[in-house]
C-alpha cells in the first residue's frame, strides 16, 4: 500500500479502474433517468432490471479489483490501490464494503418492485436514487480524504432523504423525510465543522496525514481543547449516521415513515456505510486520539443498548420495533470498537464487519417479510397485521421466525456470529463488565423479537387479506434466508473474508492496513 501524494495531477489508468464500480453505477443511474421518460406506464418494472444490471456490472468491476489483489498476493506484489491523488483508497477493507452495499441494494430493489406498484409510486427515479446512494456509500468506504468522505456522505444522505419521502401521498412518509432531512443536515454541518477543525490542525485533508500530524500535535500538547472539540464534533456526525443514542431520534420516525423496502435498505446499507466511514476515521485518521474517544464510546454504547432495547419492548409498529432493535444492534457493534484498536487486538473490528454482513441478510429478510404484508388497503406494519401470519402464509412466517431468531442471536443462525465475535473480543481484552451488560441486553432483545413470533405463530389472524408475494420478493427472501442459515451453519468463508478484508493473516492479531 503506497500513499503517494506526489502523484502528478492527472488521471491515470489506475484511477479509472479503481473508480469503475462507482462509474458504472452512476452511468446506469443516469440511464434509468432517461429510459424512464420513454417507458410506458405498464413497463416501469424495466427500471428495476436496469438497476439490477447496473449492480451486476458494478459487482463485476469489484470482482476484478478483488482478483487483482488475489493475483498480487499470489505473486507477493503490492497493489496500486490509491487513486485520484491520494483521495481514493480502494483497499481490501473498501472492497468488503463494496460487496456489502451491492448486496444490500440488490435485495432492496428486488423487494421494491412489487411494493412500489402497490403504492402507485413506480417511478424510475427510485432506482436511480438508490444507485446514487450506493455510489455515495462507496465513496464513504473508499474515501481516504475528508473531502471525498464528506461528498460521499452527502450524496448518500441526500438520495436517502428523497427515498424516505418517496411516498408522496403518505403523510407519514413526508413527515419522516422532513425530520430526517433537518436532523441529517444539522448533523452533517456539525460533522463538517469537526472535519474542518482537523484540517486546520493538520493542514491536510488526507486521512493518513491527519493521523500523522495529530500524533505530533498530541506529543506537543496532550490536552489541546481544539482537538477535543474537533473530536466531539466529528464523533457527533458519525454517531448520528449510525443512529447511536443520543443521536438516534431520527431513526424510528424515518424508518416508520419510509417505504418499507427503503427502511430495509437504510437499516443495512446506509448503516453499513456509516460504519465504514466511522471505522475509517476512528481507526485510521483519529487513531492517535483513541484514549480520548474510547470513554466516549463506552458511554454511547451502553446508552445505545439501553435506549434501543428498552424502547423496542413497548413498540407496536413492526417497523418502529425493528428501528429500535437496529439501534440496539449498533450498541453491540460499538462494543467491538471499544474492545479492539486494530493494533493489539483486531477481533472486535472483524466482529463489526461480520456483524454488518449477517445483519444485512437477516434484517433485510425481516423487512422483506414486512414488505410483503403491504397489500392494497392494508398498510401491514403493525404487530396486529402480522398476527396469524402462519395461517395465511406459512413459508413467510417460518422465514420470519428464522430472521427474528437470527436477530436475537440464537445459534446456529448467522446473527449469532456477530454477537459471538463481539463478546469474544471483549473477553480477550478483559472488558468483562461490558460483556456481561451486552449479553444481558441480548436477553431483553429476545423478548421483543418473540413478541412478533408470538403474534405470527400463536395468534389468530386479525385481518383476513391474503398475502401475495411476487417472484422478485420470493427471490429476495430466498437470498436472505439462505444467507442467514448457511452463514450460520458454515461461517468459515465469511470469517475468512472478514479477516482478509482487514489484512489479518492467519494467526496475526494486527490489521495490516494500520501498520503502514
Amino acid at each position: 500500500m503506497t500513499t503517494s501524494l506526489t502523484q502528478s495531477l492527472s488521471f491515470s489508468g489506475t484511477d479509472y479502474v479503481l473508480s469503475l464500480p462507482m462509474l458504472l453505477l452512476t452511468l446506469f443511474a443516469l440511464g434509468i433517468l432517461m429510459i424512464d421518460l420513454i417507458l410506458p406506464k405498464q413497463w416501469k418494472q424495466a427500471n428495476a432490471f436496469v438497476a439490477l444490471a447496473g449492480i451486476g456490472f458494478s459487482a463485476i468491476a469489484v470482482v476484478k479489483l478483488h482478483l487483482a489483489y488475489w493475483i498480487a498476493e499470489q505473486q507477493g506484489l503490492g497493489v496500486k490501490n490509491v487513486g485520484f491523488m491520494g483521495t481514493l483508497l480502494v483497499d481490501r477493507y473498501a472492497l468488503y464494503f463494496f460487496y456489502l452495499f451491492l448486496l444490500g441494494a440488490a435485495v432492496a430493489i428486488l423487494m421494491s418492485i412489487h411494493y412500489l406498484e402497490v403504492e402507485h409510486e413506480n417511478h424510475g427515479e427510485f432506482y436511480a436514487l438508490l444507485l446514487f446512494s450506493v455510489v455515495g456509500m462507496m465513496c464513504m468506504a473508499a474515501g481516504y480524504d475528508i473531502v471525498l468522505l464528506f461528498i460521499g456522505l452527502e450524496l448518500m444522505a441526500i438520495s436517502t432523504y428523497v427515498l424516505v419521502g418517496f411516498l408522496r401521498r403518505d403523510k407519514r412518509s413526508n413527515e419522516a423525510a422532513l425530520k430526517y432531512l433537518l436532523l441529517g443536515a444539522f448533523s452533517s454541518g456539525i460533522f463538517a465543522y469537526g472535519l474542518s477543525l482537523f484540517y486546520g490542525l493538520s493542514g491536510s485533508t488526507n486521512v493518513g496525514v491527519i493521523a500523522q500530524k495529530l500524533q505530533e500535535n498530541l506529543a506537543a500538547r496532550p490536552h489541546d481543547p481544539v482537538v477535543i472539540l474537533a473530536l466531539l464534533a466529528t464523533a457527533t456526525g458519525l454517531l448520528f449516521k449510525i443512529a447511536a443514542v443520543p443521536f438516534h431520534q431520527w431513526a424510528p420516525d424515518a424508518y416508520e415513515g419510509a417505504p418499507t423496502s427503503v427502511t430495509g435498505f437504510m437499516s443495512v446499507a446506509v448503516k453499513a456505510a456509516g460504519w465504514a466511514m466511522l471505522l475509517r476515521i476512528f481507526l485510521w485518521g483519529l487513531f492517535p486520539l483513541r484514549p480520548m474517544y474510547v470513554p466516549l464510546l463506552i458511554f454511547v454504547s451502553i446508552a445505545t443498548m439501553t435506549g434501543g432495547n428498552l424502547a423496542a419492548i413497548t413498540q407496536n409498529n413492526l417497523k418502529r420495533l425493528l428501528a429500535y432493535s437496529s439501534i440496539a444492534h449498533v450498541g453491540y457493534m460499538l462494543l467491538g470498537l471499544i474492545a479492539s484498536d486494530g493494533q493489539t487486538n483486531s477481533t472486535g473490528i472483524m466482529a463489526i464487519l461480520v456483524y454488518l454482513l449477517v445483519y444485512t441478510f437477516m434484517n433485510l429478510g425481516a423487512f422483506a417479510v414486512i414488505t410483503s404484508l403491504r397489500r392494497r388497503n392494508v398498510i401491514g406494519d403493525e404487530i396486529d397485521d402480522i398476527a396469524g401470519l402462519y395461517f395465511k402464509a406459512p413459508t413467510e412466517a417460518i422465514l420470519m421466525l428464522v430472521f427474528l431468531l437470527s436477530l436475537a442471536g440464537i445459534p446456529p443462525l448467522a446473527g449469532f456470529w456477530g454477537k459471538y465475535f463481539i463478546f469474544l473480543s471483549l473477553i480477550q481484552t478483559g472488558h468483562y463488565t461490558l460483556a456481561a451488560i451486552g449479553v444481558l441486553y441480548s436477553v431483553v432483545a429476545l423478548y421483543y423479537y418473540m413478541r412478533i413470533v408470538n403474534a405470527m405463530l400463536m395468534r389468530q389472524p386479525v385481518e383476513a387479506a391474503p398475502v401475495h408475494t411476487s417472484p422478485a420478493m420470493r427471490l429476495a427472501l430466498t437470498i436472505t434466508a439462505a444467507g442467514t442459515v448457511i452463514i450460520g451453519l458454515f461461517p468459515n468463508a465469511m470469517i475468512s473474508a472478514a479477516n482478509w478484508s482487514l489484512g489479518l493473516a492467519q494467526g496475526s492479531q494486527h490489521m495490516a492496513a494500520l501498520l503502514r
Partner: protein
Amino acid sequence: MYSHILSIILFTPLVGAILLMFVTRENKDAIRWIGNIFGFLGFAVSLPLVPWFWALKDRAGFQFVEGAPNNWISTIGAGYVIGIDGISFLLITLTTLLGAISILSSWTAIQERVKEYYVWFLVLQTGMLGVFMANDMFLFFVFWEAMLVPMYLLIGIWGGPRKLYAAIKFFLYTLFGSVLMLLGILFLYFHHHTLTGIYTFYLPDLYATAPKIGGHAAIWLFFAFFVGFAIKVPMFPFHTWLPDAHVEAPTAGSVILAGVLLKMGTYGLIRFSLPFFPAVSMTPWVRQFMVVLSLIGIIYGALVSLMQKDMKKLVAYSSVSHLGFCTLGIFALSPLGLSGSVIQQINHGISTGALFLIVGILYERRHTREIAEYGGISNVMPVYATITLIMFMSSMGLPLLNGFVGEFTILQGTFMENKVWAAWAVPGVILAAAYLLWLYQRVFFGSVQNPKNAKLTDLTGRELATFVPLVILAFAIGLYPQPLFQILATPVNNLVATVRPDYPGLNKPVVAAQPAVNANPDAATPLPEPPKAPAMQTAPASGDTNQTGVAGRVERRFSAASAPSSSGESRASSPAALATKNTPPLVPVKTAQANLAPSPAAGGK
C-alpha cells in the same frame, strides 16, 4: 453402523422432521404415522448401543467418538465431535425412550397443526440428544440454545390458556443463564489459547487447561456456568419458570420437559462445572451454598406440592423437590452421591414422565386438572388406577421400585459426607409420600361423586403401551440396579478423582489417569484406607507441577498416568495401571484425554 452409531441416533429424528415437511398438512393420519415411526425408530436405533456400550463400560473417557476437533469451523476451532461416557449413555437412552413414548402419547391429544407439532418435536429430540453427546463446547452450546426454540414453540402453540406467558418465560429464563455461560465458555477458550497458543473448543483440551484458572476468576466462572445450569435444573431461587412451563405445556411437552430437559442442567453440572473448576467445587462455602440451595429445593418443592389444587402443578413442584436430591448428590461429591444423582435423574425421568402422562390422560378425558373435580376414579378406571399407584410408589421412593435406589444412594453418599445435610434431606422423602398418597386418595379412592366422572373409559391399548416400558423399567431398576452402578462406576470415580484426588476408598482404583483400562474392577487393588475420612475438607491444591497443558498428547498421557503415584504409591503399582502401560490403547488417545487431563491436582493433601 458401529462407528457412526451416535450420529445415526442423533439425526434419525431430524430426518423424520425433514420428511414430514413434505407431507401435506391435511393428511393428519399419515403425519401421525410418520411421526410415530420416526419416534420409535429413534428409540430403536439407540438399542444396539446398549450391548455395545456395556462391553466398553469400564473404559475411561469418551467412547464411540466421531468427528475430530476443529473439523467444523476451523477458523475458530470448533468441531463436530460427539462421544459418550456412562453418564451420557444413560441420559441418551432415557431421551430416546421418552421421546418415543411422548410422541405416541400425543396421537389424540394433538388435533390442531399436527404437522408442525411432530416436526418441532422431532427437532427437539435431535437438539436434546446433541446436548448429551457433544464433546465440543461450541457444539454443546449450539445444541443447548437451538433446542430452546422447538420447546418454546411446543409450549407456545399447543399449550394451555397462559401459554404465551409460560413460553416466553421459559425462553427468557433459560437464555439468561446460557448467555452468561457463553461468556464463561469464551473465557475458557481464550484462557486455553493463552496457555497453549491454540484456539479450540475441544472439551478434553479444555479439561486440561480450565482447572488452571485460579483465584476470583475461577469463582466468577463457576457461577457463570452455575447460573446457566441451575436455571435449567431448576435449583431453588431459579425455579419459577418451571411450574408455569409445565402446567401450560401439552402433555408430551411436559414429559420431555421433566424427563429430559431438566437433566441437561444436572448433566451440565457434572460434565462441565465440576471438572472445569474442581477447586471451586470443593471450596467449603461454595459447596455448602449449593447443598443449602438443594435442601431448600427439596423441602420447599415438597411443601408447595402438598398444597396444590392442580394435579399438573403438583407434579411440577415435585420435580423441584426431586431435582433437589439430584443436585444434593452432585455436591456431596462422593462416588455414591454422584452415582445416586445420575440414577435419580434416570428415575425421575421415568416416574415423573409417567406422572405427567397420567395427568394427561385424565385431562384428555375431562379437560380439567382440578383435584377437587375427581374422586373414586379407581372404580371406573381400574387399570389406570393400578398403573398410577405403581408410578406414585416409584416416585415417592418405595423399596423395590426405582425411586428408592436413587434416593437411598444419594442419602447414603450425603450421610457419609455430612450427617446434617442428610438429615435435612430425609423430610423430603416423607413429604413426597404425603403429597402423592394424599393426591391418590383424593382422586382415586372413595365413590364417584362427580357424575361427569361416571363414564370415563379406561386406558386404550395405545395409552397402555406408553406406560408398559416405564413400569417395566421402574421394577427392573428397583429390583436389580447393579448394571446402572456398573455403567456409572468408571465415569463417576474418575470425576471424583478429578475433583478430590485424595478421596479415600473409591470402589475401584482411580483410573482417571489411564486411557484404556480393560482390567476387571475386582482384580484391581483397592486403595489403602486412610486413617479417617474427613467429612468436610478444604479444596485440594489448585497448583500443579507435573503436567503442563502444552505438552503433546502422547506425552500428556504418560505424564498424567504417573500423576496418581504422587498421592498414593500403591496406586501406581496396581495391576491396572501396569497393564495399561503395556497395552496399546483401544481407543484413540484423544478420546482418552477426557479423564486423564484434569488429574493434575493430585498431591494436594
